[in-house]
């Protein structure tokens, strides 16, 4: 059973465009969701997280994500991308009662063209 799925393996946009990277989860209980970014040859860097409260969460570098229980989604958005946003983005979830284990999606490679 795949807890987290990222339907788009690759997304290409132009600099200045808006972008949405999709993440869906399959779990009916308490869930903790986060997004990480991985630049080529580097480790993962935390972008943002959601556990409860306001479903729209703000992250670093202008990223935000919105949690939707009805859609089982936690899509990542940015209003205006920069070439430096080119990277692989991973959605991750941890589920009750074992919040220690992070289940990662397969990743979406974002390419921002000039």
């Amino acid at each position, binding site marked *: 059973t795949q807890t987290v799925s990222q339907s788009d393996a690759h997304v290409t946009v132009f600099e200045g465009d808006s972008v949405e990277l999709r993440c869906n989860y399959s779990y009916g209980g308490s869930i903790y969701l*986060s997004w*990480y970014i991985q630049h080529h040859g580097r480790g993962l860097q935390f972008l943002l*997280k959601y*556990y409860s409260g306001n479903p729209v969460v703000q992250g670093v570098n202008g990223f935000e994500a919105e949690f939707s229980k009805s859609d089982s989604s936690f899509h990542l958005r940015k209003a205006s991308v920069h070439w430096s946003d080119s990277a692989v983005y991973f959605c991750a979830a941890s589920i009750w009662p074992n919040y220690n*284990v992070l289940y990662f999606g397969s990743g979406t490679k974002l390419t921002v063209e000039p």
Partner: protein
Amino acid sequence: DAGVTQTPRHEVAEKGQTIILKCEPVSGHNDLFWYRQTKIQGLELLSYFRSKSLMEDGGAFKDRFKAEMLNSSFSTLKIQPTEPKDSAVYLCASRLGANQDTQYFGPGTRLLVL
């Protein structure tokens, strides 16, 4: 502040060799994780330590993989004997300790087994 450091950054091994990967977590962090990253399987949890105690050992990796945390600021991952299918990027991450805290990742060690 120093982030998570991993050494070596690259390792090439012959099949059957023993290799040891090293990780230093963020100072003061109580939890440490080892992950394996491949294109096909994505990110897989190998081990999880809390305050130097092994909490999760990633069942599928038990036989040839052994992670240890010798003190709160140093961990090793030993693969013995190595096989070509072990070729991957091995990521170490640490976090302060609470279940929903952010994980901070190191740059990874890229292992190639010939």
